[in-house]
């Protein structure tokens, strides 16, 4: 049975401490009531339900948790946090796990990360996001040329999506580019994946 948890293995205490420090959440109080999973709208696309992720974190199962698809499919809607009887901000724990997984180059759902980078690339260039630019970059990155092609006739007819980016005037775009540059340089200095 692939999905059983082997309690014989020593738990990764450093992992538990790290998640606790970065998320600021005391998840040891989770008693597996399942409210988070019951309310999660994305659960159908998860490989492990959110209460299982929480249990995995408590048990220090670094690989099982950080390699999970679920942390990438979480929509950040915060329903789990809202309904937790022990006030654990579960959505923040999920986000923390996503950050940790990214830093370790573990990306279980690359499409989602490619989309984020495509969006952020337009912000880096123009200071403001640009829908058509995001989609074009995403198609290049993911090699999914037909993404949302069915929307094109309507979107074009209604001029819903501008063909030109809306850049910040007066050098503002360059200031935003510098934010991204410093962010990348710092990540490099600190030896983490930006």
């Amino acid at each position, binding site marked *: 049975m692939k999905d059983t948890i082997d309690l014989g293995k020593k738990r990764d205490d450093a992992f538990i401490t790290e998640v606790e420090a970065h998320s600021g959440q005391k998840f040891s109080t989770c008693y597996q009531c399942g409210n988070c999973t019951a309310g999660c*709208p*994305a659960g*159908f*696309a998860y490989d492990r339900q959110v209460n299982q992720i929480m249990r995995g974190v408590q048990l220090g199962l670094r690989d099982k948790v950080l390699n999970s698809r679920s942390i990438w*499919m979480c*929509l*950040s*809607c*915060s*329903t789990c*946090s*809202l309904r937790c009887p022990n006030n654990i*901000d579960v*959505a923040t724990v999920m*986000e923390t796990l*996503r*950050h940790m997984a*990214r830093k370790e180059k573990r990306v279980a*759902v690359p*499409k*989602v990360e*490619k*989309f*984020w*980078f495509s*969006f*952020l690339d337009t*912000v880096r260039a123009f*200071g*403001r*996001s*640009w*829908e058509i630019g*995001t*989609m074009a970059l*995403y198609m290049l990155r993911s090699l999914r040329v037909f993404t*949302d092609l*069915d*929307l094109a006739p*309507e*979107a074009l007819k*209604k*001029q*819903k*999506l*501008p063909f030109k980016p*809306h850049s*910040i*005037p*007066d050098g*503002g*775009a360059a*200031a*935003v580019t*510098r*934010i991204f540059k*410093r*962010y990348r340089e*710092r990540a490099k200095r600190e030896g983490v994946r*930006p």
Partner: protein
Amino acid sequence: MNYAYYPGCSAKGSSADYEKSTQAVCGMLDMNLVDIRDWNCCGSTPAHAVNTELSAALCARNLDIAAQQGVQKLLTSCPSCLSNLRHAAKRMEDPAFHARVDELLDNPTALKFPAVTSVMQGMAAHCDADEIGRHVRRNLGALSLAPYYGCLMSRPAEIMDFGDPENPTLMESLLGACGAKVLEFPLKTSCCGASYGIPEREMTARLSARILQLATDMEADAIIVACPLCQMNLDLRQKQAANSADARFNMPVLYFTQIMGLAFGLSGDDLGLDKLRVGADGLLLKIEQAASAQRGSAEGGKA
């Protein structure tokens, strides 16, 4: 009265109609929205999903510009911008975090940022239901509307300060003040699938279909939204949602400012109704028919 305003990027792109109708309705209520200068993207979900400090830096630049302009209160229409700006302001209260974020910016940011609030709350603070009622020129009484806030506007409650995080009611109050019948819509804060429409279409299609199906079953004439991404998922992607649920939908999805503008007697042009994929002609017809029936019965009463 002037209000400092952060439009957000969607206002310049996919939600130009939200922007247009917001300006028009606020103008009628004597709320003059003035853009803060040189504003940049808040980073939206991609920035905070990738890195909290990067997200905060993008937001802090805007908050700092507003602070330098002496702004006390900043309004924004988009719930995602609102959420990011409010999260950043909260996190920046931690000096260590503030210092890390400042390292990414051209200059150290202000120690105190202006409060950021939604245009919807700004409207409610600016005037009461009676004042809104005084502007009503078209009776919306014939319409049943499903108010839909999406997941970001009211959550997390301690950051967003938008009333009950699963049962906010401000939109109902505004629509009610315009004379519309407002449905008790149980999915009003459920997630529409957010930005997963591009990388994981099935996620957005499935979650949006649930919302569209319930509104259809409840015989709503329209879903009323406050978020550019919700609007895009429910309207532009309505066919994708229908295909995923093996259903057929024909549900107009309007911004709350568009329906308020209709009540105020503004034209479709003033409100950018031409941008809607599922048109609002049916709604206008229903309003007009109800009005002429009323005129008819009033004349009948006289005779």
